[in-house]
C-alpha cells in the first residue's frame, strides 16, 4: 500500500483507514489492528501539525505499508518538510511518540535532508503482541524474537 496525501487533518483518517484495511487483510488480530490505527494516526498527525508549519501550503504526507517476509507489518510515514520540532504552546511530540512506542513492536525515527521518516513495525500474530505487552515497551527497532507466552495487560 502506498499513499501520498496532502498533510491536512482529514488525511489522518484516510491513512489510518487504509492501514487498518491492510492489517485486517493480512490477518492481524483486532488488538493489533487497533495498535496499527493508533500508531499511524499519531505518525500522520505529527506530519500534519509539524512538518510544513513554515510553508505556504501543506506538503505531502507519504504512507507506505507492506508485509515483510517474517510476519511483520512495516509502515513508513514520511514528509518532505522541516523535521521534528515542537511548537511553542503545543503539547508537542511527547504524547504521540509515547503512544507509538507503547503500541508498535518497533519504532525508528529517521532524518534525510530535513524530511522526517517514522518507521513502525507490528507483529501480525496476536501471541507476539501479547508477548510484547509483557515486555512492556520494546526498544526502538528491536522487535521481540521470543515466542514466550505473555500475559494480556487487560
Amino acid at each position: 500500500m502506498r499513499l501520498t496525501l496532502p498533510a491536512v487533518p482529514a488525511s489522518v483518517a484516510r491513512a489510518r483507514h487504509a492501514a487498518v484495511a491492510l492489517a485486517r487483510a493480512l490477518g492481524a488480530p483486532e488488538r493489533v489492528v487497533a495498535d496499527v490505527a493508533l500508531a499511524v494516526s499519531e505518525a500522520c498527525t505529527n506530519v500534519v501539525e509539524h512538518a510544513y508549519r513554515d510553508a505556504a501550503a501543506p506538503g505531502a504526507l507519504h504512507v507506505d505499508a507492506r508485509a515483510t517476509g517474517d510476519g511483520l507489518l512495516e509502515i513508513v510515514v514520511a514528509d518532505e518538510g522541516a523535521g521534528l520540532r515542537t511548537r511553542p504552546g503545543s503539547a508537542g511530540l511527547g504524547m504521540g511518540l509515547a503512544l507509538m512506542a507503547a503500541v508498535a513492536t518497533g519504532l525508528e525515527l529517521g532524518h534525510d535532508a530535513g524530511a522526517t521518516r517514522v518507521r513502525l513495525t507490528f507483529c501480525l500474530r496476536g501471541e507476539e503482541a501479547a508477548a510484547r505487552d509483557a515486555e512492556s515497551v520494546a526498544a526502538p527497532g528491536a522487535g521481540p524474537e521470543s515466542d514466550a507466552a505473555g500475559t494480556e495487560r487487560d
Partner: protein
Amino acid sequence: MAIDHDLDRGAFAVQADQRGDTHRVVLSGELDIAGVRAVEEAVARALDGRAATLELDLSQLSFLDSSGLRAILDVRDRARERDVALALVPGGPAVQRVFQITGLDEVLPFRAP
C-alpha cells in the same frame, strides 16, 4: 467487540443536550485531529449555558488518539476555569487503553462504567 469493528468507519460526531443544570456532550465515531475543533466548540457552548456539571460521554467513540486526549485535557481546564464539575463517561477498551498508556485514566474524573 463491536467497538473494534468500527475502526474503519465511524465519522466523528458531537451531540449536546441539557438536563437541568447538567450539560452533556456525547462524542461518537473516531476522534482525531480533524474533530478537535468540534469538541472545543460544543464544550464552549455548554460552558456558556450556566452548567453546574459537564458530562463528556466517550462511550460511543470507536477511536481516540493524542489529539483527542489533548482536547479532553483542554475540556478539563476550561471546566475548572468556569468552576463547572466535569464527569467523563468511559469509552470502550480501545479508547480507555489510550488513557491507560498515558496514565491519564488516573487523573481524569471518569465515572464508573
